[in-house]
Structures are given as structure tokens and as C-alpha cells.
């Protein structure tokens, strides 16, 4: 959920409204904001499922350190979405394990 107005910070500077896809579904966010923020504001919590135990992970540190928020971005796996700026037309996918492979075998 976006904060419309903040008592100390006022309103936030935003980039252009752009569209992107998450697992094929069209979503919108602001250009330049971290991908993770656009997803969070769209209600997406799970960024990936781990390799060994297939457990869900999402945003944890939000500053690019913990690497829990990695996803498949434009076919590239292990992209830290909390520090990668959103661009128009990006294809974001839930990551399963450490590769770009999707369940059912469709890679990239």
C-alpha cells in the first residue's frame, strides 16, 4: 500500500507510471522505484521459493544485502528486486530455486 501523504515527508517524488508483468499478469508501478516496492504495493509478498525446502521468501532487508528478494527479471535469475529500478515492460517472474526455470519446464 502506498503512503499518500506523510506527516513529516509530505508527498513522495514518483517516476512515470509504467506497466510491467508479474508471472504474466499486468501490473503498474512507478519507473525508477525498486521492483520490490512496485510488487509490494500490488500486494505481492512471495518473490521466490527456495531450492532445498521450497519455502517462500520475500523482502527482508530491502537494501540489497540479504538477497532474499531475488526474482527472475527479463529472464535473468537472482536479480535483487529491492535495489533494481523498475522499467516499462519488465517481465518479472517468481523464482524457483536458483534458476530462471519455471514449474512445468518453461524456462525464461
Amino acid at each position, binding site marked *: 500500500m502506498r*503512503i499518500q501523504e506523510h*506527516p513529516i515527508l509530505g508527498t513522495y517524488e514518483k517516476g512515470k507510471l509504467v506497466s510491467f508483468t508479474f508471472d504474466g499478469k499486468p501490473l503498474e508501478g512507478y519507473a525508477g522505484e525498486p521492483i520490490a516496492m512496485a510488487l509490494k*504495493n500490488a500486494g505481492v509478498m*512471495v*518473490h521466490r521459493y527456495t531450492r532445498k525446502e521450497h519455502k517462500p521468501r520475500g*523482502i527482508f532487508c*530491502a*537494501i540489497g544485502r540479504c538477497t532474499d528478494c531475488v526474482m527472475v527479471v527479463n529472464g535473468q535469475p537472482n536479480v535483487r528486486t529491492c535495489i533494481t529500478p523498475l522499467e516499462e515492460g519488465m517481465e518479472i517472474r517468481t523464482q524457483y530455486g536458483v534458476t530462471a526455470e519455471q514449474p512445468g519446464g518453461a524456462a525464461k
Partner: protein
Amino acid sequence: MMKRYDMIVVGAGPAGLSAAIEAAKKGMHVVVYDENAKPGGQLFKQIHKFFGSKEHKAKIRGFHIGEELLAEAAELGVEVVLNAIVIGIFPEKEVTVKVEDHVIHVKGDTILIATGASENMVTFPGWTLPGVIGAGAAQTMMNLHGTLPGKRVLMLGSGNVGLVVSFQLMQAGCEVVAVADAASRVGGYGVHAAKVARCGVPFYLSHTIISADGEDCVTGVTIGEVDKNWQIIPGTEKHFDVDTICLAVGLSPMSKLCDMAGCAMEDNPAKAGFVPTVNEYGETSVPGIYAAGDVSGIEEASSAMIEGRIAGIAAAARLGFISEETCKEEAAKQEAALEGLRQGMFAPGMRGKQITETEEGVEISQNLLKHGFVAEEEIERFPGVTHSAGVHPVIECTQNIPCNPCQDACPKHCIRIGSNITALPSIDPEKKCTGCGMCVASCSGQAIFLVNEDCGDGTAEVTLPYEFLPLPQKGDKGVALNRKGEKVCAAEVVHVRSAKAFDHTNLLTMKVPKEYAMKARFFREEETA
């Protein structure tokens, strides 16, 4: 030929920028690298007013301090390179940096490592679920990206970070269901705890998280009380429906780069972790490599700025930009300022010590340490709490912390702290309060209230600092909450003052029955009042 600078600074936070500024002032050619898209380190997430005195930029909000430092650095010609990841420090003070899509090699005649800290974490079943986040993550989401971390949040950790972020969460519009901490006492400043508690947030000390619940993301959390051996006491479990669990369990120096650079390191619990050993100028065992800020020991941003300045001065002397004498003189001034900050109950040297009385000999509020607020029966013993006819300040500042803006804020000199910056503020009964409210807005701890205990018509007026939206309007009716955040009586807003000088701290004056003058400390709009 490899590019060479007089000083390479790693990290554009408060320590790094301050060092760069000081070095550039002396004529040094300085570059600052920071991996983030925005400079300022954590300053840009710190939207509260800073403690300290004028020289420590007290009562200025963190992000404004960041803006000031950046402007000063730019003016002095410091090159600040963002999105620049320092890959490593190699022999001969060679630094490799990822810039855009390539790697550059640069050398520094001096290097300042100011990489800051990383957050500690705790484990509990479910701690890897989406919705469990670091307190830093919450700050980043809210204060940089305008994104709510969640709707209902449990905060684990009652240190300053946990308290400040709890307050920020509420400012952003989240509900904080509780602050829990395994320690038996609130770890952060009492004033930070009090401003959270009076909003109705319960504190659970000696409590820890038993589990985070949820399948794909957090839907709830169970906490429980721990015994002396940190084991859960059966039957003390409490469940909260939350979508977010925020972890604020301390920071550790992020010192890997120092280790790589060959600096002698020590694991020092007093500095909260693995740090380079440094001399009084912040110089490590490798001549010409300095460390400042959290990387050399966890403290506040205010201390980091001074440590940075000292390192900048020392580096200038090392390279002959200033004389040894000038260096000693200027460093001594900064040292004195730093010493000023390292006083009081929360000084680095006090870690782990149990304090029972203030420097003035007043018994500490145990309720504040156990529940986050000063109990009614405790508040009267503090020197800032006095009674007189008409409007007067009530200063609920009960711990010795290095902070004195209230003393300067009062144009009538009603408030006295004296030369000892950690002294509790007291009220000069000879001086007359005009009710201007400058003290209320100046208090970084939001611990000052203006009270008119008897307006003559059976009511009292309480003026309190208010930093939430929507801002209540004159005539709004609601309830007054006490220090614990419980509804105590009906209240009506009689005055709301906002001024540039107050810097977003609004002064809300509410009218309450006069017997609640010393109880009512927060206002809440309420339909059912």
C-alpha cells in the same frame, strides 16, 4: 596511469560525508563512493529530530542533516559517486569500484572506510516467511519509497531503532500491535518509548517471538515470556494477528572491508562486534587507512559525523595539508564534542550496567524500563515536572541523555540544563512561561508538554507535540490518552499550531477535565467518544 586521490571515502553516510567535507576544506582532492542510489547512508531514513546540542545538529531531522552534508560536500568540490560498489581494497591503497557496467581501479593516499553497520537478526520458527523484515527495511520502504511495510506490525526490539521505527510506522499509517523485547528493560531512550506507549502500543519486556505464523506470508505472531535462562514460560503465550514482524535487535559493524584491507581487527563487545582497532584519530593499524562511524563501533549518527571529521582532519595532517599543531587543536575540539555525546546513561561505557538513579540522585522510573512509560506516581519526582498557576512547561525527561535544545528554545529562559549536557532539565520558577511552545517543538524526545492545570472553568489545557496525519482541527472531539495509551477522559481540541520553526511538529492543545491535567498526554479522534 591509475587515478589517484588524496582521500578515497567508502560510504556516503554521516561519517563518510563529514570526513570528506573536513578533508576537502583543507584542500584535499576527495572522492566518495557509495553503493546506494541515494547518498546519506541511514540519515535519509531518519525522519526524527536528533538529540545532542547545537554543534551536534540537535533538533534537526536526520534527512535534513543529510541534505546539509551533501550540499556542503558539493560546494567544497567533493566528488560523490553513487551506485558505486567498492569491490575491494588491495595493497598500496588501491581500490576497485564497480561503476555502471565496469570496474575502475583508483588509488588513495589515504582511505576512509565508513561502511556503517548491518542489522542483527534473530531466529524463530517462521522467521524466513515473507512479512518478517528488518527494521531498516521498514524504514527504507516507508521513508524512501512511500510504501507501507504492512497494516499491522509487531516490533521485536526496544532499543532506539525499534522505538524510533515503531513511531515511524505509526506516522506512516501502520498499526503497531506491540513492542516486544527479550531483555527485561527497554533498551532505548525512555522518551522514545514514552511517545510510542502513549499512542497505545503495549510493551512486552522479557518476551520473545515463539513463532511467526502463516503459509506463504506472515498472518500472525505468537510471543511468550522468557525466564532467566531465556526459556519460554508455559502459559505466557500471546497471539497477535499481524501481517508484518519487524526485527530491531541491534546492529553490527560492517567491517569486512577493513579486514580485507589488512587492518588489525578485534572482536569487541563494547563496540558491538568485529571492528578495526583504531587510534584516537580513527586511524587503523594500516597507516593512512582510517575508519569512522558504525564500522568502528556502533553509536549514533551524531557521533559518526564527529568521528568522520576527526579522521578528515587527521588525514589532512598526514598528507601535509595542515600542520600537526592545527590537527591537534582541531581534533581536540571535535573530541570534546564527541565526549559530550558519550555521556549519560546510554554512553558506550555504560552498556550492560544497571542504573538506579539519575546523576541528580532521582530514582529512575522502573515503569519506564518495564512498560515504556513513566507511571503517574513516578513522574512528580523529576525536576522538569513542576506545578504553577497558568500555562507552564512539564518536561517528562527522566533519564540523563546528552541533549539540550529545550534550554535554548525557550525565549524566556524558563528551562535550565546548565553546562552539563546530560543533566535533567529543570524549570526556573522565577521566569514566566508565555506558552509559545518552542520548547515542545524543540524536544527531540517529544517529552515536553505545556499544561494549564486550571483554566478556571473546571478544565485544564494540555499542549502536546503531534506528528500524525490527519491533523486534528480546532473543535474536534475525541479522547485523551494517558502515558500508557489508555483512554482516560473526553477531550476537545482547542488549538492546533503549525509553524515553520516547529519543523512539522504540530502543537495540539486539548481541553480536558482539570483532574486529568497531569494524566492526559495524547489525543485521539474518536467517533465513540
